[in-house]
């Protein structure tokens, strides 16, 4: 039940993009086409889940026992950058087709603040789901939370890419063309997602 609440909460209620504003740059950058948005979503799900797992373990067994939690920011960003590189190398070797699909998006992910944002928030913030008490997440919950958050991000990205493909065909006033109208559309989408609040 707890895991179910985490998943619903992370995907719909506190959507990482539409409610927490993490990962906006790639969101605006790659949401022009549905196919690139899908590729990016896949890469994000993969990297966020893996990065959160690794940074959680590093934090728990390395930084906390030695009193080095002030190094969290530096350690995590280095771990994420290395991880992304490693994922790229491994994928190239074992699954060239998946590498083809995700390849160009992987280097972009290091600077996607959703990755560092999720990794940092699971080790620093207390969460409340449903009526339960506020608590720090354990390893299983963290990974589920990270996975669900990434799914939420991917979902927002794909919905938004679909909307933008239609926007291209519409007659938009000249000054609104491109990013401004995309932002306003995104605002309306965020408003729709606000309807989910109170669900969990």
């Amino acid at each position, binding site marked *: 039940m707890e895991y179910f609440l985490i998943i619903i909460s992370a995907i719909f209620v506190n959507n990482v993009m*539409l*409610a*927490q*504003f*993490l*990962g*906006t*740059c790639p*969101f*605006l950058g790659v949401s022009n086409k549905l196919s690139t948005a899908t590729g990016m979503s896949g890469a994000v799900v993969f990297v966020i889940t893996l990065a959160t797992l690794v940074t959680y373990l590093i934090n728990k067994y390395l930084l906390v026992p030695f009193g080095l939690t*002030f*190094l*969290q*920011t*530096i350690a995590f*960003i*280095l771990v994420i*950058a290395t991880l992304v590189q490693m994922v790229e190398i491994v994928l190239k070797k074992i699954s060239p087709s998946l590498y083809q699909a995700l390849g160009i998006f992987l280097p972009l992910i*290091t*600077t*996607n*603040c959703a*990755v*560092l*944002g999720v990794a*940092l*928030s699971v080790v*620093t*913030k207390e969460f409340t789901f449903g009526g339960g008490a506020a608590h720090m997440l354990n390893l299983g919950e963290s990974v589920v939370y990270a996975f669900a958050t990434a799914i939420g991000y991917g979902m927002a990205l794909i919905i938004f890419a679909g909307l933008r493909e239609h926007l291209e065909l519409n007659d938009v006033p000249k*000054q*609104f063309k491109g*990013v*401004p*109208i*995309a*932002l*306003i559309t*995104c*605002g*309306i989408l*965020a*408003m729709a997602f*606000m309807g989910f609040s109170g669900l969990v």
Partner: protein
Amino acid sequence: MSKRKLDIFTKGFFKENPTFVLLLGMCPTLATTTSAINGLSMGLATLFVLVLSNIVISAIAPVVPDKVHIPVYIVVIATFVTILQFAMQAYTPDMYKTLGLFIPLIVVNCIVLGRAEAFASKNGIVDSALDGLGIGFGFTMALTVLGMVREILGSGSVFGWKFISGDGLLVFIMAPGAFIALGYLMVLFNKIAKKN
């Protein structure tokens, strides 16, 4: 100040405004501008990291091997972000709590790494410092304006000074208002920029 140095300093205000023209650093722009003072603080925090990392990176760039330059730059930036975190925890703990996650996330703010890569690694120390100051001020300005608009519409106050009784249009304080306000501000900016 020579003409060239002045150009480097002022281009971030308008011509290469990081928010309205380059569309960089969107996450803190949207997330922290619930009021003018929050926007201003976030802008100044980014300015601090931007100027210092630009100075250090322009100084070390000639000796950093090309293959590892991105990780090296990220470590430099992360160091200054950690210093900023300590300073804010000590001197402005309330603001540190309000801005929360977005202070450590300056590390992945594309403006900072973008300036390091595009400007500081190729230019001298003084020019890089000026570039950091200019872009930082442009970013701070954009965040303050967006924060002001959202605060006026959302809670009917400017820098905490309330001019209506009761609530404003609450949606402008929440997530959707951020996107919509920034969208319209961008239209306005495009319109003004076109005329010049």
